[in-house]
């Protein structure tokens, strides 16, 4: 892979010789009115009157209140007003220019309508969010790439939204939340996998969302710290489902990216699925290979929040088990647990491997 011309920026790591690509940036509307131009009168009426209803009871606020207002860095509120990451010039200043990013991937979270109890609203808002990403961000800043937000509980509508943008290079992936109301390998979601594979787009599965089920398989936890911990278990369930249902057998070119789900658990999940599959192969004859082989080939992970073993060098084992070519840098800007690229990727990782994590792997995956 060609080296990229180093970008002079105060926060750019010297090891980012294959580029610096941030796979997790969260743009936000100043207020819902920014979506108005992209909604019909009826859709706007529904949104403005009855609002967004995720699969929980908090019409305002969060089931597990965040660590900081809007879960954001306290220095990320734009001086001109509005919530963090709602202002392009300030985001350019604080993130793109500060770190010298070559590219940044936009992952809009709520209010995006994903996982809404009302499929119609979810469909309308997904389309609006996609138009808004272009109109407010990507068309003004070529370093930013959009994600195709899909109303994932409706497989057919999601596939239509993916096909609508297929081939448009301003979009680099399809975006799902990790807590869907059924496991992602089930048939209702197959149209999403089919359309993404057909469009040649990876599918990013970002932590969060509300499935409508308890946040653990043993009931509701009490604390935000548990909600954060349980992103790993939800993602484990999703990877298991996709592998065991044979998604990667059916869609052999499909790639998925686990964003902000952690990655330390991935090797042990692969070993566990292999061991279980070995004893219960008769149940799943549609699997032609060991689960770990599908995972190694099809699953990518983003780094933030970077795993921090008590003995830091243990990270090398984990990264080796996952595959050095499967790990993508992400900052999670503007959230409170933002990872600074210079600090988050430890310097004891060999330099060429750091270069791959900073940018080389993402360039190959996204085709930048």
């Amino acid at each position, binding site marked *: 892979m060609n080296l990229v011309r180093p970008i002079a920026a105060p926060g750019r790591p010297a090891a980012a010789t294959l580029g610096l690509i941030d796979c997790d940036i969260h743009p936000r509307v100043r207020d819902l009115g920014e979506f108005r131009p992209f909604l019909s009168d009826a859709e706007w009426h529904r949104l403005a009157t009855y609002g967004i209803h995720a699969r929980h009871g908090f019409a305002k606020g969060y089931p597990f209140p965040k*660590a900081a207002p809007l879960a954001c860095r306290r220095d990320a509120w734009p001086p001109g007003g509005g919530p963090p990451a709602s202002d392009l010039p300030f985001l350019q200043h604080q993130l793109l220019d500060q770190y010298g990013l070559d590219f940044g991937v936009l992952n809009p979270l709520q209010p995006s309508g994903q996982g809404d109890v009302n499929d119609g609203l979810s469909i309308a808002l997904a389309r609006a969010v996609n138009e808004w990403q272009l109109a407010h961000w990507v068309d003004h800043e070529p370093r930013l790439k959009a994600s195709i937000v899909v109303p994932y509980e409706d497989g057919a509508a999601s596939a239509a939204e993916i096909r609508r943008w297929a081939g448009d290079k301003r979009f680099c992936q399809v975006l799902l939340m990790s*807590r*869907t*109301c*059924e*496991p*992602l390998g*089930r048939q209702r979601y197959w149209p999403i996998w089919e359309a993404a594979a057909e469009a040649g787009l990876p599918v990013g599965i970002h932590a969060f969302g509300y*499935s409508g*089920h*308890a*946040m*653990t*398989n*043993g*009931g*509701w*936890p*009490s*604390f*935000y*710290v*548990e909600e*954060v*911990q*349980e992103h*790993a*278990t*939800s993602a*484990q*369930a*999703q990877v*298991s*489902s996709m592998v*065991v*249902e044979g998604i990667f057998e059916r869609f052999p070119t499909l790639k998925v990216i686990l964003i902000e789900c*952690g990655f*330390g*658990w991935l*090797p*042990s*999940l692969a*070993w*566990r*699925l292999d*061991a*279980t599959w070995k*004893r*219960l192969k*008769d*149940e*799943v004859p549609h699997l032609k290979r060991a689960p770990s082989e599908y995972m190694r080939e099809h699953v990518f992970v983003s780094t933030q929040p970077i*795993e*921090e*073993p*008590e*003995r830091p060098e*243990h990270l090398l084992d*984990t990264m080796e088990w996952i595959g050095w070519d499967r790990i993508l840098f992400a900052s999670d800007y503007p959230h409170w*647990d933002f990872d600074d690229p210079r600090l988050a990727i430890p310097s004891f990782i060999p330099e060429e491997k750091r270069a791959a994590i900073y940018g080389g792997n993402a360039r190959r995956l996204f085709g930048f």
Partner: protein
Amino acid sequence: MTSPGQRAGGGTVIQGVIDCDLHPHVPGVAALLPYMDDYWRHTLVERGIQVLESASYPPNAPSTVRADWRGANGQAPATVDRVQAQALDRWGAAAGILNPLFPVQLPFSRDMSAAMARAVNDWVRAEWLEKDARLRAAILLPNGVEEAVAEIERLAPDHRFVQGLVLCMGEIPLGRREWWPVHAALEKHGLPLAIHAGSAWRHPPTSVGWPSWYVEEYASNSLGFQASLASLLTEGVFGKFPNLKVVLAESGVSWLPSFLWRLTKSWKGVRFEIPWVDRPPAEIIRDHVRLTVRPFDAPEDADTVSRLLDHLRSDEMLLWATDWPHAHFEEDATVPPGLPEGLLPKIMVDNPRATYARLREGGSA
């Protein structure tokens, strides 16, 4: 007799090995009737409640009972002579801990759950503990907290009962304060809380709903262990009950190190939310939590296993267990491949004895 210490063509015989996870199979509700009072005996008979089986372990699945341990009609081994022939005598165990999995957690009626738990515990005592002095057992705990505490108090005086037993997927997470009277009773009697794979089926096996295949369902047990441990830690159970030990049985083990990294990091970031957790979660969990080694979800090469053990940063957490009659290994390969020989005396003898105060007493009640 093939001693686990003699595997792989070498090593000395390890004396006094302790099998920390054996499953006595209740052959049906009828077997429990002699241990029920009149009301429940009549209720079960008159209402035709002849079977109670959990979806957690489909009886015919190859993993539920090893093929060569099944009876003539494929049934699970249900008598003490089977555990003797297939496990205790065969591998020379000095002691074995019975963890009954009869699903008393399934009934929605607390009273029924409690009646069944009492009957199972009395059945285990009469049909197993009385018949082999090497055997110890868990107190199978019913769903209701009051009833669970009563069952602990009823059986704790019999020191052949060495721990309380719950499943990794219940109705509410195990650290929640509703559970604390159970933790208090266990701590008072020096009994660990054993958390075993399995579900009370109050929730789907994953936080994102119902999987299609048993492969996924079985694998999702490890998610329940992770959530249970996170709950116990964040709610402050180990601070409130400093002498409480927790044993994770049939958990898979290899998920633990990265779980501790994540939990410790999250705690660093938001520990203001749980100020009673006043030292790193990884340290607390290493002090309080033990894990049985079957299944051991890792590759079989010694290098990977040794790196994994290094990540665990403790040689005191692992407990030898065959998980009889569940199927995790062939023939006599009771010890997971790749575990270093030098660690075996700890895993097979020292750690179980350190975990279970009552195993150090010797003799029976």
